[in-house]
């Protein structure tokens, strides 16, 4: 699959971000650079604000203060594709119509060839006319992946998209996601340290005192689950996460 834009897509640049939801201050004065054209995984304990951070980046929640832009200095609006914890396929549309959702919402003509190509890519070309309710959990997430790619956005935000799947399906769709998302700027939130180590170029951990650096990962994703680097970084990462939670 071709990169969505010529050259390297922009990264995400977060400056002096403060986020307070209700009584709880999740982030204060957070500075963060997410590399363009690479797969970055963001980990952290439950409730630390991972999903909230992603919602802020996606423009769904306004930040209390601070600035979020592309690394090129331009706003992120209109350059982001978002994939959530649930597949969020609309049950009243067919799989193909769901993939073309962005065109439908903007009242534009759908690019059926592109949608068909994407459905083939995720292995669902036979199910273009099916309703989402008739698909299995893994197939639904693959359809959601095709819908995410349909918009050709350079930046893809993924919020634990594979957490509800069984281990085998998850491994397969992780590999697929890593392959089809090459050339995009991807920010993946996950609880799964192994998933982070298999898929990402960069690892970030939200700790008590802000974002912590992690041991750099070796080799190119998607790494095999039994890759020695994956196993090593997996144990290092788990240790780091345990220390934070304690």
């Amino acid at each position, binding site marked *: 699959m071709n990169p969505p834009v010529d050259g390297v897509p922009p990264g995400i640049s977060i400056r002096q971000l403060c986020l307070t939801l209700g009584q709880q201050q999740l982030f204060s004065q957070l500075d963060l650079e997410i590399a363009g054209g690479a797969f970055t995984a963001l980990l952290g304990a439950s409730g630390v604000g991972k999903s909230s951070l992603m919602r802020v980046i996606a423009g769904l929640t306004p930040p209390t203060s601070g600035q979020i832009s592309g690394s090129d200095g331009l706003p992120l609006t209109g350059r982001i594709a978002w994939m959530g914890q*649930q597949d969020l396929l609309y049950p009243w549309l067919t799989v193909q119509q769901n993939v073309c959702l962005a065109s439908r919402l903007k009242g534009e003509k759908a690019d059926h060839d592109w949608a068909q190509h994407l459905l083939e890519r995720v292995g669902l070309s036979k199910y273009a006319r099916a309703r989402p309710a008739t698909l299995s959990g893994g197939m639904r997430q693959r359809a959601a992946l095709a819908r995410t790619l349909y918009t050709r956005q350079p930046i893809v935000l993924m919020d634990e998209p594979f957490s509800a799947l069984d281990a085998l399906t998850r491994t397969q769709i992780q590999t697929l996601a890593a392959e089809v998302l090459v050339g995009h700027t991807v920010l993946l939130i996950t609880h799964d340290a192994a998933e982070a180590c298999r898929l990402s170029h960069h690892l970030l951990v939200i700790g008590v005192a802000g974002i912590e650096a992690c041991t750099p990962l070796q080799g190119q994703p998607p790494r095999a689950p039994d890759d020695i680097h994956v196993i090593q970084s997996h144990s290092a990462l788990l240790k780091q996460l345990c220390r934070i939670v304690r």
Partner: protein
Amino acid sequence: MRNHFAGLRRGATLFTGLITLWWLATLTTIPAFLLPSPAAVAAALWQNADYLSHHTLITLTEILSGMALGVVLGGALALGMTFSPWLQRWMMPLVITSQAIPVFALAPLLVLWFGFGIGAKVAMAVLVIFFPVTSSFFDGLRRVTPGYLDLARTMGASRASQLRHVRLLAALPALGSGLRMAAAVAPIGAIIGEWVGSAEGLGFVMLNANARMQSDLCFAALFILVLMTLGLWLTIDFLLRRLISWAPETI
């Protein structure tokens, strides 16, 4: 398809059973002017076919116009309340109050205002169905899965587009329950209106026949009314099932 036939068979069995019970009851010493036999009612239906069909048409018109108007008004108010918290704060108490007043008590007033004609009956039907339609549709519009809307927003959908492509469709099953309820109760509104003051319609036929001790004719009118309500409900149910075939039915 098998389900369809099973349902039809069950309905037929139930119907025959009830008629048999009724028929057995008329074999006792109960006088015919209190409880006419099924045969007498069938005869009344046959002999007064023209008379009854004329009045049936009137009542049906009232019910259908009341349904249409009530659904349009209720739907519009639900949409308005979705978009304007101000409208919601001011209109919701009014909607609930409209239910707190017994419609029966309003009927004489409506006849006074709208006259003996069809207007008062349509207004009654509208009043009866307004609440179920408004509240169920509004509930549906309010309870759209937040993720559906988040996704639409990340794709740059305008508010109008979110309404048209997400909220409206996601609210259809809830609106469906309101419409089914409306189909079942709209005839009540029309009949009450006719009882209070009218010169036409099945409610008028029933009152008139009662006053003349023609209980067989009264039963015949009642029978038509039941068939009409059932027909209306089944039609709405059928259309909704076709329209919302994607909504999961777990029972």
